[in-house]
């Protein structure tokens, strides 16, 4: 089944490269991969899993803080959660999410309600998109390993 493994490996390589090229991931994700080894083979997947849990929690906080029905919006509260999300997305290499957080933070500082709501919607879509993409990537890895192959190291230029 060598042809099968080779094909999977090529798929994996192409897919990974596309994630970087489309701006989903940046070199911090590459840094995380450096921290993975035989002793901790699922390190990247586990950190990303924690990150996505963080997304759910923080986006929930932002939504609540932007809820006008509870009174006036506290933009500093929104901003605090955005700041946290910006930090963790930066730490895992989630480039698009991080970029959105930068914009989001500016809207918070400007106390621009519509801008904040838009960013909230976008960041929600963005983290979910990334989650799906990464799940596909991790599945390819799994398939390669199950077929008896080795997950290739992908060099991003």
């Amino acid at each position, binding site marked *: 089944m060598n042809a099968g493994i080779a094909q999977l490996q090529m798929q994996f390589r192409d897919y990974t490269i596309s994630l970087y090229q489309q701006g989903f991931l940046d070199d*911090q994700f590459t*840094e*995380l991969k*450096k*921290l993975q*080894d035989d*002793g*901790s*083979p*699922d*390190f990247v997947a*586990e*950190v990303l899993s*924690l*990150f996505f849990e*963080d997304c759910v929690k923080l986006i929930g906080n932002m939504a609540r803080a932007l809820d006008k029905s509870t009174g006036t919006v506290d933009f500093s509260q929104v901003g605090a959660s955005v*700041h*946290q999300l*910006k*930090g*963790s997305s*930066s*730490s*895992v*290499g989630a480039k698009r999410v991080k970029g959105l957080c930068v914009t989001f933070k500016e809207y918070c500082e400007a106390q621009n309600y519509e801008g904040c709501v838009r960013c909230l919607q976008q960041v929600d879509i963005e983290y979910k998109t990334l989650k799906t993409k990464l799940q596909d990537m991790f599945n390819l890895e799994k398939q390669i390993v199950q077929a008896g192959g080795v997950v290739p190291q992908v060099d991003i230029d």
Partner: protein
Amino acid sequence: MAARDGGVSCLRRTEMIGIGIGELESPPSDSDQVHVLAVDDSLVDRIVIERLLRITSCKVTAVDSGWRALQFLGLDDDKASVEFDRLKVDLIITDYCMPGMTGYELLKKIKESTSFREVPVVIMSSENVMTRIDRCLEEGAEDFLLKPVKLADVKRLRSYLTRDVKVSADGNKRKLVEDLSNFSSPVTTSPPPLSTSTSMESSESTRPSSPVGFISSSPESSTSPVDSPIRRREMKSLGLD
């Protein structure tokens, strides 16, 4: 509170586990390894920094706030910390922006203490603000790391640490005390015991903590002043990359 001896660190270990994944300590007798106290309110960042440090052969205690860091160091009350002679902390690395107590405030408290003022403190921040960096350096911070932290950054930190991962004189003494019948045999250290993993992470690294082969003293930092972390920050803020 329990007696202020090894019992306290046991108590704290269980306390620390309650705050989240990633708190891991080797038994205090394992004094050959570099011990780093990492402080960050973000769980994701804590996991990453802990892994970065462990990969560079450090023993790591990760806590989620300045207050807990002080608690761990025994600086949270004003009692004299003689009981903490055995608590070896070789480096403290802390996030700057944290709710409650900032990294800067934590830095000040550490530098004010008698027991830990000599311990190098490194500040991490996602923001490259010169005034912030200056403040921290003036207060005695050893270095300032821009987040996201990379493996190369952590490897460079090892150069601050006087303690290296090697056989120490203490280690030899311990061996002799333990086994007097081997008094005349050549002094060798047996590999330190495997760190007992009480972490909830199933993927926790189980590599042996033997120092052989893990001395990653790859000096990434050149001695040129241009390359020093402080200069690098200055150059970055001037737009010179």
